[in-house]
């Protein structure tokens, strides 16, 4: 590797050529303060916080974008650099509300941290807001508070480059610039998937989840309600982190314990309905393969993905599996099968979901999702909102005992838990489809080709002579590539898994802040540990799912399944008329 020698704050270091000053400084042990810079995104030199003095250069340079050159002498903390950096932060603050105490990002705000780092203790400039009273609460999932926006453009980059959606963009110029949906209209008026990736990259409190915790507190306090909770696979590898443990801490048992202490009447597991999804979706795939159905079939668990294809590729909706997502299958069964079994009137059952996802809030409100005769799921909370409730309740997470989920809707297999990771639904489906079609036991349950963070993964599975080619995409920009192939007739796959968020649900828009590639890798490892730790690892071996079919549903794709567990989709189109 070619290297160059540079001097940073008096210290000579050898760094790979092409490094930015920021990267070179990190090698030299100097962390230049940044604000708009994000390790996973291509956003640079918007905020001017990382300015440094380069000897011989006419002006201060943005360290995040300026490459080093041989012999370069950089002063990151010279009076000139420090004064400019400080001034730039003060100017950003002069157009930012100074109400940290009331902000949802209090103590998790990059601007607040930066101001603290630089020791800013007074406001020299009178605050003039460009964008007062500009709260967008139009969507069921996300809130945009443009008064807090510092115009870093990270949300624009993630929406365009990672998700291929481009719901947000900069409008106007100079002092009039805002970041908003086209025409400055509300988020619900444009084709936004509500994936919430913008929340993760927003350095401040300008975009955040719609908080539904009060609805859950009220239900828990209502003696007439039987409140049940389901937790998505990705929560057990993230709630520990939200409560201050290391990223990737696997805390399934503590999660169950803490939900009981909050007062839920039953603590169930979305992994159960993930197993059920595999039974339905696996048989749907077999049916399509054997009866000339629309192929490739694409998974339908991820509500941001569903909204994406409804908006941008409505002509391809027939490719979607008709299976509801595990969250919605759970809700439909909680208010029918479980209500019947437990002898509780479904009108008194209140279903709360803990999801890693902001789009799930939208999904549970879709008009199709009332097949039980009631809203199948009443409230969706993100991992962050659950964390908020736990902190308020003062429960000491770290010292909790490990407890078990309740039966029957809490019984699951390893196939259910890997739904939380990209490739997991595919792997779980293959474990079942292989054994159902061939009648043989799988030599190994691990389909490692579909694991990992590669944007698009492919594999071919031999089902006793019939080759099935599959693909897995995560991040909607990757999904878009596959959809274009389908449109051009060049996709020779039979089965495709799509998850909206990078890494799958473990990187979902409702997960703890920060969520980035480094953190996602740790959660990913934890998910596969959870799978390995399960006695049963194939959905069709789940005894509670078997009992459900015997006692209630009959058979996969049967009439009752069709009514309760399957759905249809809506052609939305790209633009509002």
């Amino acid at each position, binding site marked *: 590797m070619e290297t160059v020698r540079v001097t940073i704050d008096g210290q000579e270091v050898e760094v790979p050529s092409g490094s930015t000053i920021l990267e070179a400084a990190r090698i030299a042990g100097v962390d230049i303060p940044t604000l708009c810079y994000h390790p996973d995104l291509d956003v640079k030199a918007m905020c001017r916080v990382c300015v440094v003095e380069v000897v011989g250069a006419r002006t201060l340079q943005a360290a995040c974008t300026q490459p080093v050159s041989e012999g370069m002498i950089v002063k990151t903390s010279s009076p000139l650099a420090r004064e400019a950096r400080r001034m730039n932060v003060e100017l950003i603050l002069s157009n930012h509300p100074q109400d940290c105490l009331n902000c949802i990002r209090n103590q998790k705000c990059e601007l607040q941290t930066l101001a603290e780092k630089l020791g800013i203790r007074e406001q020299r400039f009178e605050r003039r807001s460009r964008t007062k009273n500009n709260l967008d609460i139009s969507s069921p999932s996300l809130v945009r508070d443009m008064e807090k926006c510092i115009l870093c453009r990270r949300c624009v980059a993630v929406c365009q480059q990672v998700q291929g959606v*481009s*719901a947000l*963009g900069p409008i*106007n*110029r100079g002092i009039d610039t805002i970041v908003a949906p*086209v025409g400055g209209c509300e988020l619900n008026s444009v084709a936004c998937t509500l994936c919430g990736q913008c929340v993760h990259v927003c350095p401040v409190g300008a975009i955040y989840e719609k908080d539904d915790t009060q609805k859950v507190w009220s239900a828990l306090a209502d003696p007439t309600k039987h409140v049940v909770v389901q937790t998505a696979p990705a929560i057990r590898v993230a709630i520990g982190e939200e409560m201050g443990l290391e990223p990737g801490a696997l805390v399934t048992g503590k999660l169950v314990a803490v939900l009981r202490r909050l007062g839920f009447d039953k603590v169930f597991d979305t992994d159960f309905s993930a197993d059920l999804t595999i039974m339905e979706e696996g048989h749907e795939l077999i049916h399509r393969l054997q009866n000339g159905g629309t192929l490739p079939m694409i998974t339908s668990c991820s509500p941001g993905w569903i909204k994406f294809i*409804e908006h941008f590729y409505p002509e391809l909706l027939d490719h979607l599996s008709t299976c509801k997502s595990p969250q919605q299958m759970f809700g439909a069964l909680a208010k029918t099968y479980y209500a019947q079994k437990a002898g509780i009137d479904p009108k008194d059952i209140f279903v709360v979901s803990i999801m890693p996802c902001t789009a799930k809030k939208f999904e549970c409100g879709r008009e199709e999702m009332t097949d039980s005769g009631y809203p199948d799921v009443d409230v969706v909370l993100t991992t962050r909102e659950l964390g908020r409730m736990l902190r308020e309740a003062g429960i000491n997470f770290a010292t909790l005992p490990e407890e078990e989920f309740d039966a029957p809707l809490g019984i699951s297999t390893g196939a259910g838990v890997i739904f939380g990771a990209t490739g997991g639904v595919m792997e779980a489906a293959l474990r079942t489809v292989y054994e159902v079609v061939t009648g043989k036991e799988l030599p190994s349950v691990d389909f490692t080709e579909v694991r990992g963070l590669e944007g698009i993964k492919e594999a071919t599975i031999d089902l006793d002579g019939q080759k099935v080619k599959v693909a897995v995409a995560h991040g909607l920009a990757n999904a878009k590539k596959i959809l274009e192939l389908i449109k051009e007739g060049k996709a020779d796959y039979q089965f495709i898994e799509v998850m909206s968020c990078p890494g799958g649900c473990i990187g979902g828009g409702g997960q703890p802040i920060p969520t980035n590639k480094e953190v996602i890798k740790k959660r990913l490892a934890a998910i596969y540990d959870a799978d390995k730790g399960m006695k049963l690892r194939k959905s069709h071996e789940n005894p509670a799912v078997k009992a459900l079919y015997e006692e209630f549903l009959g058979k996969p794709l049967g009439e009752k399944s069709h009514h309760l567990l399957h759905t249809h989709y809506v*052609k939305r*189109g790209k633009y509002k*008329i």
Partner: protein
Amino acid sequence: MPAEKYSSTPNSGLLSDIDDIIRKHQNRDGALIDVLHDVQALYGYLPEQAMKRIAEGLSLPLSKVYGVATFYSLFTLEPKGQYVIRLCESAPCHIRGAVQVLSAIEEELKIKPGETTPDSKFTLEFTSCLGVCGVAPAIMINDQVYGNLTPEKVKEILRSL
């Protein structure tokens, strides 16, 4: 959210002229700005339906087209008058009497900056420096620059149009 409110393509008033313009520039890098210029030359402004058509034609997100159209002050999303008067609001023009020139225009046309006369003949706007400080105060009417202005002179110019 009622899904019927969305459609995959712009729904009305699409002129093949826009497609012709897109075709003309399509294969060049940075075609967007050229397309916007030509479409604005055709309609006098950039209608929303036209921007959607441009987004589709160039395979760009509408948010990108809209962002560029609102970034440059010479693009307009509103219909304007036949003559667009741009008054320089930079310091040199200010010192040399731009305020008096502005008053004269306002008096003559009975409109304020940002407005268009009822007969759609004139629109009055501010602009940043026109680069002709040597002949300050200056205005631009459509593509033509006028310098060394006085209140009387500017009224004369307006009356001659």
